[in-house]
């Protein structure tokens, strides 16, 4: 059994803070099923005044276009409020999806959380 296999069909989001940065750690897959939850979480944070959000995909299995749309919406929302969205710890499949979709060029992607928090 692969690790990601156990997370099929469900997703858990853990939120922690580092200074003024909110760090969201995704566990599971970000697809049509789970993206509404992710959307709700992100909106709640931004609406609550958060301007610096780091999404950690270390434990994400895969992401589909539904998940990409959630990220796109959040990034646009923060950009308009002079905030910023950063992403870190992408596995190969997610990295490939980001490359194919062109998201690699429009979102700030970092190898790990430490790099991402540097200068945030």
């Amino acid at each position, binding site marked *: *059994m*692969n690790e*990601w*296999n156990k997370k*099929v*069909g469900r997703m858990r989001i853990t939120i922690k803070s580092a200074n003024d940065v909110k760090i969201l750690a995704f566990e599971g*897959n970000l*697809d*049509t*099923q789970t993206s509404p939850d992710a959307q709700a979480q992100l909106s709640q944070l931004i609406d609550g005044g958060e301007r610096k959000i780091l999404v950690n995909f270390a434990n994400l*299995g*895969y*992401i*589909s*276009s*539904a998940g*990409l*749309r959630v990220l*796109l919406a959040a*990034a*646009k929302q923060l*950009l308009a409020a002079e905030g910023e969205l950063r992403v870190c710890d992408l596995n*190969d*499949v997610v990295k*490939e*999806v980001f490359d*194919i*979709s*062109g998201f690699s*060029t*429009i*979102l700030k992607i970092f190898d790990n959380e430490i790099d991402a928090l540097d200068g945030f």
Partner: protein
Amino acid sequence: MRALGDAPIVPTPPARGSAPVEQSFVALVVAAIWCYHSFSGWVAFGAPAVKCAASSIGSMKLRYQLGLFLTATIVMSAVAVVIAILHHRTHHRQVAAEQLRFNSILLADELRQSSDDLTKFARLFVQTGEKRFEDYFRQVLAIRNGELPRPEGYEGIYWDRVVVEGVAKGSKNAGAAVSLRERMAQLKFAESEFALLAEAQVRSDALVNIENRAFNAVRGLFDDGSGNFVRRGKPDPELAQRLLYGDDYLRAKAFIMEPIRRFEESVNARTTALLTVARNEAASLMWASFVATGSLLALLVALSAVIDRRVLLRAGTLADAAGRIGEGRLDVRSGVRGNDELGILGATFDDMVSRLEENLNLVTAAKDRMEYELGVGRGIQMSLVPLIFPPFPAREEFSVYATLEPAREVGGDFYNFFFIDENRFCVCVGDVSGKGVPAALFMAVAMTLIKSRATDDLSTASILTHMNDEVSADNRESMFVTLFIAIIDIRSGEVVFTNAGHNPPYVRREGGALQRLDTRHGPVIGAMEGMVYGEDRMNLRIGDMLFLYTDGVTEAMDARDRLFSEERLVALLESGDAATAEAAVDATVSAVKAFEGGAEQTDDITVLAFQFHGVAGKATQARWRVVIKNRLSEIAAVTEGFERFADDQGIPAAVAMKFNIAFDELLNNVIAYAYRDEDEHEIVIQAVLSRERLTVTIFDDGVPFNPLSVKAPDTQSPLEDREPGGLGVHLVRGLVDELSYRRYIDGNALTLVKLLDREAA
């Protein structure tokens, strides 16, 4: 003795020697005046009359018109010459008439003068008694009667000088001895004038009697009573003087002068009349010459008008029309008409253009028909060849891909592939001679013959031998087809093939090494009945590809007429761009199109690739299948099921995740958009793993929808401009190796292929 001379009086009519000339002159003058009046008539009646005359002339042929003008010009010129000659002659006559008048008056005057001289000498002799005066008296009479020669300078004061100087000194008797009467006859004095002279002579008798009595009285001789002077007496000069100065003498003298005066008047009147006629003639001729010159001028003006209006203007119109027609305007007509040469030319010209236009219309129609027929032929051609790929998505043993790019005119390519039975697959590529409907029908016959024969004949040699006999037997059109046919055992990869006059195909070994199948097993199909074709066998190993094509590929030409050539094809096939059947076909067609550039494609381009994926027996094939309802909540069952299958088959987790993304994207699409009703539908997902090739197919019974036709999003635009949507299919396309769509009668099938590279990994 005072006679006027004995020369006979010859009455002569006035000079009429030029009567015929005068008549023709009158005729000419009449003609000239008529011309003049006609001309004035034209001027007076103005344009209508001119137009009427012009139209009657205008209806004539041009050469007749020009001939008419030329004739008129010649006639008028001749008239002018005659007038000039006549004028010249009239001038001479006028001069002659003046001379005649002068001479006549001189003669008449000489007559009167001589009469006075006689009286003068008679009186002098009587008074002086000098003998010389009597001699002078006799001389005057002798000269007048032509008995003595006429001295030079006799007119005028000859005798006055003689009386003063005695004998006329220096006077020479140069003149001939011609009587005055004779000289008058020479000058053609009139009969009536001579009658007057005769009368004068008669009247002079009285005068002569008196003078005789006077002369004799001086000599002392007197009349004896019988008229003879024989009675001698004493000379009596006084009597003589009384006689010559007496009233009787003066009366007789006056009486004799009367007819002489009338004679002078007559001469004067006659010669004046002659002179007047000559002067009138000269004036008339001058007028006639004016008229002739004016007529010539009018003729020239009319001629230039005819040349300008009837020739130059219409020739210009014709040239203009010809120019425009030359530019392709076949609807243009000159409109030049008439009975003359240019009118006939104009009508003929317009008629010719009409025929040209008709012919062009016919040619255009024929071309349209030919285009239409070619279109029908292309339609038949394209309906005969299989166009849906992959044609057998469930078969994992091979992949086959083909393309036919029809040319606009020449064509006749075809390809075909079909299962003969469960394990034998037939592929063929051919090129029919000719084009249009006949070629398409011949192609249909050829394809039907191949397929029907192949169902129970596994020898390509046998199939083509029989087919050739069938086609050649009744081949009146002498059509033929080049053909390569192969039957492949899809379990073993063994190939039986026959090449009937077709381009040698290639075998692309896995990795790119090429092998050319050079053997030709016979001539083109349809050339000759009774030919026996051969066949060859070879083996395809896993990953090997059979590459068939027609000469439209290698003989494709660029704008500079260079051939695409087999070298370019070989280089392309050897490269990594031709690793799969679809890639090899697409790369070839793209390379040929790029090579041609803008040049028109001259022949059909046909490429077919068959790739052998190896024996995938039931034992070595893993299959997975799941059926779900059209609800979003069902997607999880697919991903979970597929993950288990992938886990079981050792498919890498990354590959499985990519397929799960694909399921998320594609199943969402199907459920959201494929159904127009609210009913429950089934979606079938199946996966086949054959060695390193994972094929997943999604079947749905929704409305026709090809997700591959959705335009890819712009993945390079900045964040602010990014719009959601269209991203899903783009992602899937990027994540798998092959993605294809096929529409069935009752549903859609999307096939995803991923080549696993587990050995390398």
